[in-house]
């Protein structure tokens, strides 16, 4: 929104005198220290670790060159966890954006206090801790006693084994994560409300159908927000951990079957680092994740240039 608004605060023309620079340094200091100690330093450290076989229990490790990266190539679980993560992302992201848009449109068309009420209701799952979400769905997805399969049975559909059947585990996780779609809805709803009414009126006068209004007015006007939720939902999907770990891993592991079907990439990374103590290997896994996320985000940004319309921009 800022683009349409004239900037009102202007930075003071300081910078020459030393005392002001000291003030700047003081105000910036939390971030500078934090960046060096908790971001840049760790990145370099993590990169270094990825070339070692550091064992956190003994505190020893040697430089082993690219061996961790070679090992990743031959590690079946890296492939499995990448596949699981990709499957989830490819299913969850379109569903969350599509369903989010549907709900936001319904809210927008309803309007008024009611829309506010519904929006609040939709957002409630988002304030629920991930562990609680996992615990809740551990119960809801039980077969055949859980609420989901009881509801399916009520309409004559025999529910699948969400927690045990490798073919259904990831679908169950998608279902669980879709429950927390409220954030996407709120963002898209806000974007829809900011589409100027005049544009619709003009389109209507031109005799545009509802679909054409949506396609040629709504979509371009909210493309920025759509792109934003696409990116954050993708990045979050690729890093899914807590909910899955709650249900399928930790000491809980072994109570649900399905083996590696719920082995998401960050779960595997976490287990290597903190259960098998192989922090060198886990660091190499982290850098692969970094590369993958960077690549996907880059591609999304490139593609979005063609589709995303920003206010004030010439088309």
């Amino acid at each position, binding site marked *: 929104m800022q683009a349409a608004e004239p900037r009102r605060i202007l930075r003071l023309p*300081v*910078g020459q005198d030393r005392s002001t620079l000291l003030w700047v340094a003081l105000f910036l200091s939390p971030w500078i220290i934090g960046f060096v100690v908790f971001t840049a330093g760790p*990145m370099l*450290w993590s990169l270094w*670790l990825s070339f070692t076989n550091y064992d956190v229990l003994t505190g020893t490790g040697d430089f082993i060159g690219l061996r961790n990266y070679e090992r990743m190539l031959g590690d079946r679980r890296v492939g499995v966890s990448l596949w699981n993560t990709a499957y989830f992302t490819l299913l969850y992201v379109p569903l969350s954006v599509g369903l989010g848009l549907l709900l936001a449109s*319904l809210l927008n068309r309803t309007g008024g206090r009611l829309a506010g009420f519904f929006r609040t209701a939709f957002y409630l799952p988002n304030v629920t801790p991930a562990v609680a979400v996992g615990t809740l769905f551990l119960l809801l997805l039980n077969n055949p006693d859980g609420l989901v399969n009881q509801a399916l049975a009520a309409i004559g559909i025999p529910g699948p084994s969400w927690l045990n059947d490798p073919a259904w585990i990831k679908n169950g996780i998608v279902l669980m994560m879709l429950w927390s779609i409220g*954030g996407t809805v*709120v963002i898209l709803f806000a974007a829809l409300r900011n589409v100027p009414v005049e544009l619709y009126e003009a389109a209507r006068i031109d005799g545009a159908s509802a679909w054409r209004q949506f396609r040629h007015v709504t979509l371009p006007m909210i493309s920025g927000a759509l792109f934003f939720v696409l990116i954050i939902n993708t990045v979050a999907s690729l890093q899914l951990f807590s909910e899955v770990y*709650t249900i399928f891993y930790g000491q809980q592991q072994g109570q649900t079957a399905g083996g590696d079907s719920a082995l998401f990439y960050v779960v595997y990374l976490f287990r290597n680092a903190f259960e098998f103590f192989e*922090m060198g290997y886990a660091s190499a896994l982290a850098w692969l994740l970094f590369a993958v996320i960077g690549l996907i985000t880059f591609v999304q940004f490139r593609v979005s240039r063609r589709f995303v319309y920003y206010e004030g921009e010439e088309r």
Partner: protein
Amino acid sequence: MSTSQHAERSAVPGIRQPEAVLAERSRGGVRRVASRAVYIALLAGFTILFVYPFVWLLSASLKTGAEVFNNELVPDPVMWGNYAELFARRPVLAWTWNSVLVSMLAAVTVTVTSAMVAWAFAYFRFPYRNLLFGVVLASMMLPGAVTMIPNFLIWDWLGWNNTLVPLWAGNLFASPFYIFLLRQFFLGLPRELFDAARVDGASHLRMWWSVALPLTKAALIVVFVFELKAAWTDLVKPLIFLRDVGTYTLPRGLKAIVDSSNIGGEQHFELLAVGGVLVTVPMIVIFFVAQRYFLEGIATTGSTGR
């Protein structure tokens, strides 16, 4: 709820009426009313999908172990004792206290420090400013998994393993996303205020603390509640830093309950439900109290995300 709508920041006031308003203005009112009824029915249906699991969980937490899955809405008998039992079996009070402490410290520290840094970027002109701000933006994209292991080793090396410190102290050093968000708000403040204050001889610190911060109170609350929620719900840090059951936070404690619910000869699903309720209810209460800020914040996030 209407307050939250009015509070929504809007770039161009006056042209943000939703389509519904337009709809009511136009012809064919009966059809419009009918379709609005359909929308409301659909929304109500979705609301049930989103809200009923909470009701189910609350209900399950008050049932006997054998009845958890019976899908009756009202438990019979109502087992208030489940709560007493969980409190007797686990140090739930200590967990709650730890969670409160960690979330409050995390939220307060990150709000104050992010506001400091955001102010520097919004107000001052200094060498390499744009470059540094670019670094802030870039570090927002960094996946947490990359720095997780070294950060663990740093806190370990400092000797703060198995304490609550690593769960919040990282927030002493601001957070890129909040810096970004608050800077946007600071940029929207009228410059005249600060000119006047400067004429009065106010120091930079006072200008920030007494003039800028009070004017961006709403944004600060947004940051505060966001971080409160983030810290309260976090599982990863408690998982890797905490050893003793007494130092657990509520989510870590719930994970321990999930872990042991099927092991060692017990299958107490009703106690799982109690744990789920206990860790969720405080967040729901806070959400209803600060609802406006949550929803406003998340909506602003979307529009500033461009």
